[in-house]
């Protein structure tokens, strides 16, 4: 009965993958990534509520709106800090998160914004051998579709090849004439858009309120650190691993609480400091 | 024949499928002036890193005065007398020139772990640092922040830090790299004036520098030692000329 864990892992993956790629690409410690997931989630839920958009349309809207917003921020602000110290990046992105939280609180109040799933996705589904939560299965299928699409995009397209080259060796990539700044703007937008999708898709499990940006940040970061920077497949397996492990441990050893996940992360990171699938220095 | 000061035996290092150095047998004698040349990607910097203990070899040995130091780490090798400079400056950019050298001198004199006496009161360290800066003609810049210096003088600081360690072996990785030609004489003069008892291994593309400086030259190609000999022998070797000297773009 690992499906629940896999579904949780998929959400982690969808949100975290953008973080991993942008961190791997620019070495930018972007603690505001969870904030983009939150903004996207708000856009999705509110578009459904107020404009009556369908779930899928709203997801597309959230993706585009967040990607667009992130491009503006990236060009105006992030770009100034690419060569700054890690600490400055941490401070800047924490500041950004605070601004996001305060703005959403001022505009929409501190409360949770409930996601109302289409009726078809609610309840249980009969798989023949077992009854299972429909939405979990939807998430798993969506997650797999996304990872396949991303993998293909990474392996088969020019953009993907450029990103891989730049993650592995930025100087080399630059000398090959790849426009790193443009590349980063694009991946940043895509990554934030993905986070928005994750925020919307995951709202059913994780809820959506102004504190979202900080509440789950640690989990997203754990996934990225364990998966390795700039590794799509690494993040995928790390997200699955963390999702499933968390699920199983919670179910069978609820007394330990979230302690195990931290312990597992520490052990994994000490064993493979660059992440399970990372090669480049973090 | 006495044991060479620094010696490698069949030193091999691969990065994945790439053989960065293969079966390198190399020796550096006391007081030597030795140059290491070769095309880009020949494994010169890898060899320096192996000698300095930054990376460990896949196979083979490094010996210092006949003692196997293959498993000895970078910091300990410095204590044994192996110092190096870097192809791209690795300086304490936010600190003054004096502080840069002070850090190295304090480390060599074993003062660095001391916590309770102010650094400035250790006049032994300060004097030694100032003396060193004097010999490199950096005294006037002693108080300036390294990041404010012109690049040529920064390269001198790079050298000063290595010299502060009183090495027996000095590995210079392209000491004049990136220095505008108008300033490069500063570096060359400094190298000329290095104390004769230090064994110096220099990597450089600048053939004028190499031939002016070296008593012995080793040529590396594709990770292996291709030829080794006196400048005259190397200069006259047709194969070396074919693979390297003929096609060199710089110098």
């Amino acid at each position, binding site marked *: 009965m690992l499906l629940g864990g896999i579904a949780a892992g998929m959400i982690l993956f969808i949100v975290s993958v953008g973080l991993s790629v942008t*961190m791997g690409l620019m070495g930018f410690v972007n603690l505001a990534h969870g904030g983009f997931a939150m903004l996207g989630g708000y856009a999705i839920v509110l578009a459904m509520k107020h404009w009556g958009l369908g779930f899928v349309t709203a997801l597309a809207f959230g993706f585009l709106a967040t990607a667009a917003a992130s491009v503006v921020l990236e060009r105006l602000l992030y770009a*100034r800090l*690419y*060569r*700054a*110290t*890690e*600490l*400055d990046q941490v*401070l*800047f992105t*924490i*500041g950004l998160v*605070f*601004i996001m*939280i*305060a703005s959403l609180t001022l505009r929409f109040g501190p409360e949770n914004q409930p996601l109302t799933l289409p009726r078809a996705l609610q309840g249980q589904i009969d798989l023949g051998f077992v009854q299972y939560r429909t939405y979990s299965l939807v998430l798993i299928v969506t997650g797999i579709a996304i990872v396949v699409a991303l993998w293909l995009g990474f392996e088969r397209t020019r953009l993907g090849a450029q990103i891989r080259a730049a993650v592995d060796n930025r100087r080399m990539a630059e000398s090959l004439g790849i426009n790193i700044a443009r590349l980063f703007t694009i991946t940043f937008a895509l990554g934030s858009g993905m986070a928005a999708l994750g925020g919307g898709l995951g709202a059913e499990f994780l809820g959506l309120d102004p504190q979202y940006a900080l509440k789950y940040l*640690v989990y997203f*970061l*754990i996934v990225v650190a364990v998966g390795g920077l700039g590794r799509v497949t690494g993040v995928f397996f790390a997200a699955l691993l963390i999702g499933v492990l968390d699920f199983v441990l919670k179910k069978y050893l609820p*007394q330990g*609480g979230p302690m195990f996940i*931290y312990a597992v992360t*520490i052990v994994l*990171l*000490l064993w493979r400091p660059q992440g399970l699938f990372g090669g480049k*220095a*973090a | 024949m006495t044991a060479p000061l620094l010696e490698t035996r069949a030193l091999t290092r691969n990065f994945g499928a790439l053989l960065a150095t293969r079966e390198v047998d190399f020796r550096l004698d006391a007081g030597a002036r030795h140059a290491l040349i070769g095309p880009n990607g020949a494994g010169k910097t890898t060899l320096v890193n192996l000698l300095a203990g*930054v990376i460990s070899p896949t196979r083979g040995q490094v010996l210092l005065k006949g003692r196997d130091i293959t498993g000895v780490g*970078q*910091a*300990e090798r*410095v204590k044994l007398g192996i110092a190096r400079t870097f192809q791209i400056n690795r*300086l*304490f950019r*936010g*600190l*003054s020139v004096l*502080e840069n050298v*002070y850090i*190295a001198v*304090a*480390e*060599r004199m074993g*003062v*660095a772990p001391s*916590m*309770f*006496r*102010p*650094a*400035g009161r*250790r006049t032994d*360290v*300060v004097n030694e640092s100032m003396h060193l800066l004097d010999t490199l003609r950096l005294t*006037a810049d*002693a*108080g*300036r922040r390294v990041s404010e210096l012109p690049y040529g003088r920064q390269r001198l600081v790079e050298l000063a*830090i290595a010299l502060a360690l009183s090495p027996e072996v000095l590995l210079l990785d392209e000491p004049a790299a990136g220095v505008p030609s108008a300033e490069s004489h500063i570096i060359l003069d400094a190298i000329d004036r290095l104390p004769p008892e230090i064994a110096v291994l220099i990597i450089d593309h600048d053939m004028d520098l190499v031939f002016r400086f070296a008593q012995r030259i080793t040529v590396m190609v594709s990770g292996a030692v291709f030829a080794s000999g006196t400048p005259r022998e190397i200069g006259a070797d047709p194969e070396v000329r074919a693979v390297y000297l003929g096609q060199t773009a710089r110098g």
Partner: protein
Amino acid sequence: MSEYRGGAQARTALARRHRVRAWEPLPWIVALGFFFAFPKHLGFGTEVLVTILFALSLDLVLGYAGIVTLGHAAFFGVGAYTVGMLAKHGLWNEPLTSLALAGIVGAAVGLGSGLVLLRTRGLTLLMLTLCTMALLEEAGNLAHTWTGGFDGLDSLPIAPLLGRFEFSPLYPTTQYLYVLVVLFLCFVFVRTLVYSPFGQSLTGIRENILRMPAVGAPVPRRLAVCYTLSAGIAGIAGGIWAQANAYVNLGTLGLDRAATVLIMLALGGRGRLYGAFVGAIAYMVLSHFLSKIYPTAWQLGLGLLLVVIALFAHNGILGLGETVWRRLRVSRPLNMGAPQHRTPNPPL
């Protein structure tokens, strides 16, 4: 500038930089003045002093050795629980000795975790420090028979200081002076440390961690020592916090505290000793008064402030001050003040 003068000035600058400057007694005079001028604000004042002490401990690792950690509250919490559990379970409640013990336990945890964790860098180190702290927090929740779990340990029976001075919960005069003295002693220690050859080698690690092994410095060992000392001071900060409040709870171990102290230090200016003072005071006073007016406004304002600091004033309030000062006295050579923090890279 002649060669001789340049060298001599550099030498004097180095020889004199540890000397007490004329303005340095000022913060302490202000702190004492506060005691008499604002007797009703001593609770807040005590909290500020403890926070300064905690920020100072972080400055040693972050500002001087350049280690970015998100888990420093672990040591604060460990110190606080050392004092709390000893007192609550009736084992030991004499303030000075239990405070020393809090420092020792904090240092021990720092040494243990430092030896293991400090081999990593960047995101990995960030996550490892964070997870270690979170692990301790969860362990604290799990061991509730000892730690009081989520509720914490309240009404700690802390014995009077030196057997004479009671800790009053409502008018914390004893606490304020006690914390002030401890802060002063720890400050003197840290100040001595950063101007010593050891401190110089820490700045070397901060400025270029890759060069240090090439000058023969045992970087992991030196970082571990620095981390241990810093953890010890953080433990003292936590211990004295528990004593001053007669209370300890899991919040002492939380990410909130760890992130806040990081923000404070960055705000004040890292690697500057007094950055801890300026940052903690600026942050807490702003927070205290702004959130009285309009709570959400504080969060918004703090966010904007951080963005501005990160973009335009990498070295915090003190860094800004120094820049202005230097502009005013262009010709003065460097190194008149504390060891400088690395110059920020220019924006692209």
